[in-house]
């Protein structure tokens, strides 16, 4: 194993030979990747190919069967309790379903991680932080609304805002554009790029949407049979003579043919 790559200061996520299976179903079968600071990686793949499992392992929600996952220099599956909690504060996770707390208003949703993890903050500072991230996602007007009153796109953006309030170094997006209309998808893509530029955060974007991958990612890869295709730029990946990547491209950009 090349230790120098793992210990490189610019590498924020380093995954080596990651394997994960559920009963007899092998989902990840030797994933290797290094993600640099400020870099966006889009991970494509068919449903059930293990894309979401990958980011759940990175955030410590699932344990790998074997292999190492280092996030900001720490092996995630070896961390417990407060150490894991501290690392998680540096990771933002945008869920596919947005996962907003439906018994709380938008303000309370955003305040929840902040007041619980930074207990010495004054109410004024909390309110300023909430208003600042809501401005970043252009949804300040929804501050007193309940999640049930928001559209799908608004919920996604509030979900992203809830992670941004902790100023994460790494963002994990699980299907950020799924179920949204094309114009809202453009808004979300713009927001992902804005987060990269404004917060200098590295991101992993799990998606089926090639437009999203093209608009947001510096590097693109695809999970095929539990392994990554060699990561590259959008054009490099889809110039490969790989039938899996080709069929994905043809489906998404069928009008280009």
């Amino acid at each position, binding site marked *: 194993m090349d230790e120098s790559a793992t210990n490189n200061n610019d590498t924020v996520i380093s995954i080596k030979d990651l394997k994960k299976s559920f009963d007899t179903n092998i989902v990840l079968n030797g994933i290797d990747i290094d993600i640099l600071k400020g870099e966006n990686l889009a991970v494509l793949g068919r449903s059930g190919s293990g894309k979401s499992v990958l980011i759940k392992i990175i955030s410590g929600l699932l344990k790998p069967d074997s292999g190492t996952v280092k996030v900001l220099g720490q092996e995630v599956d070896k961390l417990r309790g407060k150490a894991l909690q501290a690392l998680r504060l540096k990771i933002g996770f945008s*869920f596919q379903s947005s996962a907003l707390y*439906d018994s709380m208003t938008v303000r309370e949703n955003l305040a*929840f991680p902040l007041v619980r993890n930074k207990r010495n903050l004054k109410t004024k500072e909390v309110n300023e932080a909430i208003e600042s991230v809501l401005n970043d996602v252009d949804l300040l007007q929804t501050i007193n609304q309940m999640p049930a009153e928001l559209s799908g796109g608004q919920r996604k953006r509030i979900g992203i805002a809830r992670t941004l309030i902790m100023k994460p170094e790494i963002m994990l997006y699980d299907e950020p554009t799924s179920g949204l209309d094309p114009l809202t998808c453009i808004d979300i893509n713009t927001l992902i790029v804005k987060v990269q530029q404004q917060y200098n955060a590295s991101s992993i974007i799990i998606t089926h949407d090639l437009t999203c991958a093209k608009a947001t990612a510096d590097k693109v890869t695809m999970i095929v049979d539990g392994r990554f295709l060699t990561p590259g730029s959008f054009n490099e990946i889809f110039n490969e003579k790989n039938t899996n990547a080709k069929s994905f491209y043809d489906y998404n950009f069928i009008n280009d043919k």
Partner: protein
Amino acid sequence: MESEIPVTSTPEKFLLSKKADSFFRDIYNVYIFILQYFKELFSVPFEWKELINQCYQVGYRSLPLISLTGFITGTVFTKQSRPSLSEFGATSWLPSLISIAIIRALAPLVTALIAAGKVGSNMGAELGSMKVTEQIDAMEVSGTNPFKYLVVTRITAITLMLPILVIYTALIGMLGSYLNIHQNELTSFPAFISSAFKTISFLDISASVFKAVCYGFTIGVAGCYQGYYAQNGTKGVGTAANVAVVLSMFMIFVEEMVIVQVVNAFR
């Protein structure tokens, strides 16, 4: 080894049978769940604010339902008991009979069954819904311990609140009983109280409070366990709420039987 498995069985291997293995696995998981509860209960930081909120939800919000059912229980039990006692000219024993029945058995049981239906199902459904919509995962990745915040506070709240609700139910039931006795036998309030509490011992009251603590803990564990580990989307939420209620009620009756035997040994 493969040849030992009957041709019709699934490829999986079980120690006893699929259902028996699953049953014992569930019991073990509940045991681990309870151990984790006690571990998190005594570790800092304490979730005081959420605990108070849950006590309010469990206690104060249950008062109207508990009041109504407690009052009806006391009144109906008095009305039903009167004919039997009047045959022996013993209606003056009504307050004693009613107080023993309400304090020893009816108040803890009625309150616990109502709490199982109202609070247990609510816990199962609420946590189940949070589980299947990834809200619990979201809480975990945002640096909050969801077990401590959601489970420990709920189980503790109902364990603390149920004894108070049981005492309240007993008092309301006695009030219903008094009004009925006063209407029929013209018994004064002091005479009713004197007669009712003459037969009640400290053991009766402490046993009822102890029962309420056990029932509250059972309802909390059943509701939270089912909700926290809910699976299979909205169907799983319904199942969690349903199983939480059925399991709580079943366990309440089992505990009632055991505790009565133990208390009678001390009587």
